[in-house]
């Protein structure tokens, strides 16, 4: 695997004030009635239900899978979630629980969340997860190498992981909360895009700040520009810190008005979240019945 020339990682500058202004401006879109219902149902279909805790167990994962298949028993017509996201050792459990459902199994890998281990171990982890049936791999980039300016190393590693993924889709977690500047984030997008990422993903969820609207706007612009430049579509996943239906709709507005219709699909945009689903369900029930239900009316998984 040869290093790409640093020249290729050159990116346009990002103006922080204007980027944040644009994201805030799109955040004022007012979504009512049918637009709200449609957006929220789409948000469910785009959700990667996630559990990434030391205390995760087969039982917990099975329950989460049941929720991903059918998010709300009272409304079987609602879509399933896009995927369940777990640690590699629980991939097998999730694969079994989701068989025949169309819900994908995503696994974090490459020494998630810090990524501080050697490359052979990272690749081995990817192979294990894929071998157990994961169809999507969420890798973390080497932020240490990135911040030290060793972009070629970051690029090479993504290429290697991509190869190890085989047929599985590769989501590249940039951990934007550690890259700090929008210029860094834009460059990390460029590296991941050139290395063959299928998705650009904001965060592990273990670092604050995680996903923010300006960061996701920036990722969407990178995906859009890559498509216009090469014809290859790449997805974007907003992960971490997204808890309310209102937030989810704001992100969908960013997608709709930056990348447009083609990206308004679970194939090209995802939410990585653990507690978002119930708020979305509660808002949908409110739109349907005109009343807010108790939180305990929705399953706790």
């Amino acid at each position, binding site marked *: 695997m040869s290093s790409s020339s640093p020249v290729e990682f050159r990116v346009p500058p*990002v103006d922080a004030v204007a980027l944040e202004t644009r994201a805030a401006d799109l955040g004022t*879109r007012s979504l009512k009635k049918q637009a709200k219902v449609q957006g929220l149902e789409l948000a469910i279909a785009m959700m990667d239900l996630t559990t990434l805790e030391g205390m995760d167990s087969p039982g917990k994962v099975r329950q989460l899978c049941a929720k991903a298949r059918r998010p709300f028993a009272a409304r079987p017509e609602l879509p399933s979630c896009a995927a369940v996201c777990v640690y590699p050792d629980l991939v097998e459990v999730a694969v079994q629980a989701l068989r025949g459902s169309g819900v994908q199994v995503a696994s974090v890998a490459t020494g998630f969340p810090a990524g501080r281990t050697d490359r052979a171990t990272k690749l081995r982890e990817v192979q294990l997860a894929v071998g157990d049936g994961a169809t999507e791999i969420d890798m973390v980039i080497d932020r240490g190498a990135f911040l030290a300016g060793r972009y070629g190393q970051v690029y090479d590693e993504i290429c290697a992981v991509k190869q190890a993924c085989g047929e599985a889709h590769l989501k590249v977690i940039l951990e934007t909360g550690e890259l700090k500047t929008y210029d860094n984030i834009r460059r990390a997008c460029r590296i991941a895009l050139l290395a063959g990422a299928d998705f650009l993903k904001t965060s592990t969820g273990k670092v604050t700040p995680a996903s923010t609207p300006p960061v996701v706007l920036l990722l969407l612009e990178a995906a859009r520009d890559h498509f216009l430049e090469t014809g290859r579509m790449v997805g974007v996943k907003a992960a971490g810190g997204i808890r309310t239906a209102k937030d989810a709709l704001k992100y969908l507005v960013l997608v709709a008005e930056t990348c447009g219709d083609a990206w308004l699909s679970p194939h090209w945009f995802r939410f990585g979240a653990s507690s978002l689903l119930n708020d979305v369900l509660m808002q949908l029930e409110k739109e349907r019945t005109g009343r807010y239900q108790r939180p305990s009316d929705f399953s706790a998984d």
Partner: protein
Amino acid sequence: MAKTDKSENKAAARELAFGGVWQYAPSIEGTDHFTIQARHELFVGGEWVKPKTGEYLPTINPATESVLSEVAMAGAKDVDRAVAAAQQAFVGWRRLPAEQRARYVFRIARILLERAREFACLETLDNGKPIKETRDVDVPLAAQHFFHHAGWADKLDLLFPGQHPEPLGVIGQVIPWNFPLLMAAWKLAPALAAGNTVVLKPAESSPLTALRLAEVFQQAELPPGVVNIVTGDGRTGAALVRHPGLAKVAFTGSTEVGKEIQRAVAGRSVELTLELGGKAAHLVFEDAALDQAVEGVVRGIFFNQGHVCCAGSRLIVQESVHDLFVDKLRRRMQRIRVGDPMDKNTDMGAIHSAAQLARIVELVQSGVDEGAELFQPRCELPAKGFWFAPTMFTGVGQTHRICREEIFGPVLSVSTFRTPEEAVEKANNTSYGLSAGIWTDKGARILWLASRMKAGVVWNNTFNRFDAASPFGGFKESGFGREGGRQGMRAYVRLKGALSPG
């Protein structure tokens, strides 16, 4: 997963599509929280008085062409009466302890914010601009001007140390239709803070928010006659600026009328500030943050339908990024939502009047005739009301009318430059000089350019940003005098150099 989608998309043309999958439902701002009376009188000496002319003029909603109300047509005698009321009020108002004047101005700001929703709705109905703008820009900014200037009222000695600032007297203020409430606030706030009294003449096609401001003055218990509001057409304005009782005239509007006013006050002991037209340039360099520059250019020309004196109507972009930048602009323009101004998702509302629409149409036709290339995104315009799609001309030369004349509409003209020197030369190659925008990532270049721009306001990597603390005003045919900040206060005081001790 997603394999079929992918290959299909690869085969498809590399273009983006918008608005076909997820449409925003209408989200119309309610109007049941306030009423508009069928007829408005003149506000003179703290009371509503009938015009001596007996005439009334209708004011319409530009988005529907329906009549909202009718307002009094003030004649010379009505102006006389208003100036007399202001003169009478001046005696007490100037002697009021400054900190008490500050309280009144502060109270006006607070009440305005309390009634923000009502003012935003009324402004949108009477003017045609989107509710998003009146809600997020016009009304908050108007309140900020009162808040800011309330603070200066008792600190004038600090602003002008040793120069004994005094109020001028009665100020005649004539304001335009593009920011009816905001321009009233820009003019009234410093005048009142400095201890002057005012006769304000709103534009005939958008008088309602200024008249409602009179209700705020009453609510704030502002002494009668401190602010008087005379509505009417050009004749009212002409009578006001010629009135011998005025100490100063402040005007915002067209360069043509500004010149007339300047002639009218010539030879009299009357101070004058003019804030007139513009033909601002955006200079976009190849190293700029282009996606953000696109946002700035869009904000610069399509904000308020381009009815902005400082609108960035000339985009001058470095030749090396011209095609890329224009492509980005085209895509962005497709997403501008034009329509019902009361819909919270509308980005661009109605053109303010039939006359203004006719002027825009005429100038756009001249652009086509003179050989520039026209681009307008596909958008459905409502059948009733006055509408014009966002418009961009490429291949524009410095000689084209669309590059020289103020269009005061949503029309951008694009040309190119090769070197920074050429950029400066083209930017300054206009009879106007109100504002300019610089888009580059290089700090040193920003400074180099800003010092060479012949414009009163230079925005760096942003555009159409306003603040009560920041002076606003023009060079050349864009007028003289500043509004906002310390410089703005200077226009409403008389300074004395030497006084005997004690």
